[in-house]
C-alpha cells in the first residue's frame, strides 16, 4: 500500500469544509506525529530527549536576536561591515553563530537606492543560524509565489510602502547560500550602543519585509 493511498483516505475524512476542519486536521497530525515518535523510539532510532533539546535550542538560543546583533555590529563597526561583505560566514561565526542552515552565509545591504527581499520559492530555505526557525508565512504559498513577481504588493501587506523609484532586489534562495538582509540604520541613532541598536532590528527587517526602527 502506498503512502499516497493512506494520505488520500485521511484527507477524505476531514476535508469537506466542516467548521472543525482545521481542528480535525491538527488533531490528525498530532496522532500521526505521536505514532511516528513512538515507533522510532521503540526501534531505537531516535532519542526523545534529543527532540526536547532541539526544541529548547530553537525556543531559547537560536533566534532573530542573533541576526540583530550581527546587524547592530555592522552599523557600529565599518571593519565588521566590510568583513560581512567579503566573508559573511566567517564574520557571523566570529559572534558565535554557526551551523545548521547558516553554513554558507551572505549579507546583503539595503541602500538608499535598493531594498533587498529574501525568499525561497522552491521550499523554505532560511538562515536558521541567525534568524532561528522561519515564520509560517515565509514557508506558505502566498509569500513564496508572490515575492518574486509582486514584491511591492507583498510588502504592502506587511505595512511597508517603498518609494516608487526605489529598486527592489529579490533573492531567491535556490542553492545552499543563506541570505541576511542588513537594513539601513535609522536616522538619529548615532548615540546608541550595539544592544540598543539591536532592539531596532526585527526578524522581518532581516528578511526584507520591514525596515529597521522602533517596534510599532
Amino acid at each position, binding site marked *: *500500500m502506498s*503512502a*499516497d493511498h493512506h*494520505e488520500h483516505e485521511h*484527507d477524505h475524512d476531514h*476535508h469537506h469544509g466542516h467548521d472543525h476542519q482545521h481542528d480535525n486536521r*491538527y488533531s490528525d*497530525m*498530532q496522532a*500521526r*506525529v*505521536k*505514532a*511516528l515518535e*513512538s*515507533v522510532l523510539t521503540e*526501534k*531505537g*532510532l*531516535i*532519542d526523545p*530527549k*534529543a*527532540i*526536547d*533539546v*532541539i*526544541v529548547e*535550542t530553537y525556543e531559547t538560543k537560536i533566534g532573530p536576536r542573533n541576526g540583530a546583533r550581527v546587524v547592530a555590529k555592522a552599523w557600529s563597526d565599518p571593519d565588521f561591515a566590510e568583513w560581512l561583505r567579503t566573508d559573511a560566514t566567517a564574520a557571523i561565526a566570529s559572534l558565535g553563530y*554557526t*551551523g*545548521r542552515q*547558516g*553554513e*554558507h552565509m551572505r549579507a546583503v545591504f539595503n541602500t538608499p537606492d535598493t531594498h533587498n527581499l529574501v525568499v525561497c*520559492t*522552491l*521550499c523554505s530555505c532560511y538562515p536558521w543560524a541567525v534568524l*532561528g526557525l522561519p515564520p*509560517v*508565512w515565509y514557508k*506558505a*504559498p*502566498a*509569500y513564496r*509565489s*508572490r515575492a*518574486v*513577481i*509582486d514584491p*511591492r504588493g507583498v510588502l504592502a*501587506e506587511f505595512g511597508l510602502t517603498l518609494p516608487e523609484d526605489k*529598486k*527592489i532586489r*529579490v533573492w*531567491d534562495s*535556490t542553492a*545552499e*547560500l543563506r541570505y541576511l538582509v542588513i537594513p539601513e540604520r535609522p536616522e538619529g541613532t548615532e548615540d546608541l550602543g550595539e544592544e540598543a541598536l539591536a532592539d531596532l532590528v526585527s526578524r522581518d527587517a532581516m528578511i526584507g*519585509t520591514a525596515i529597521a526602527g522602533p517596534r510599532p
Partner: protein
Amino acid sequence: MNGPHDLGGQMGFGPVAPEKDEPYFHTEWEKRALGLTLSGGALGGWTIDESRHARENIPPAAYLGASYYEIWIRALEVLLERHGFATRAEIDAGQKQMEPATPKRILKADMVAGVLAKGGPCDRPVETKPSFQPGDRVRTRNFNPETHTRLPRYARAKTGFVEAVQGSFVFPDDNAHGKGENPQWVYTVVFDGPEIWGEGADPTLTVSIDAWESYLERV
C-alpha cells in the same frame, strides 16, 4: 520536477498573512515534528537533496493544503520507509514490527548542540575553473526533468548576468537521486523583472537565483 513546490509566480493564494508576535510553534506536535525531522536526517540514510525531493513529490492537493511541518512529516515517513527504517504498517500502528536498517548514527540529547553548531556544509572543491565570471551574460537552460532540480520554472530560458561566483557546491539534481555529489560552480545570476514576467512587470524589480554551472549557457 514541475511539482507543487515550484511556486514562484503562481497566483491565487491570497494575501500573505503575517501573524503578530507569532510563536515559534503553534501546537505541541510541531515541536516533535521539528525534532523528528532533524533526528531522522541524522540517521544518515538520505541527503538534504533527497529529502527536498521527497517533499516535492507529495501530491499537489496535499502539498498545497499542508502546513510546512506537515510537509516535513509526510516526506519523513516516505524516507523512513524507502531506507528500511520503518514500514508503512509500523508507522500507521505506531509499533515496531521488524528490525530497522542500521543507521549511521543516532542523535542523542548530548550530541544536539554539537550537531547543530556544525551543520552540514555543502561546498566541495572542484578541479575545473569557473566557466563564467561576474558581468557575463548568460541564459538559463530550458528543461523539464521529472527528477529533482533547483532551477525554478519561472527562471528557465531567461537571460541575465552573473553577479558573483559563489564557490563550488554539491549538485542537488544528481545528489537527490543517489548519483553522487558531483560538485559544480554556483553563480548568483540576476534577471530584470521584465525579462522574467514580461508585459506589466515592475521596472524597478530584479530577481536573482543561485544557479549551478550546468543550468547556464553563454549568450
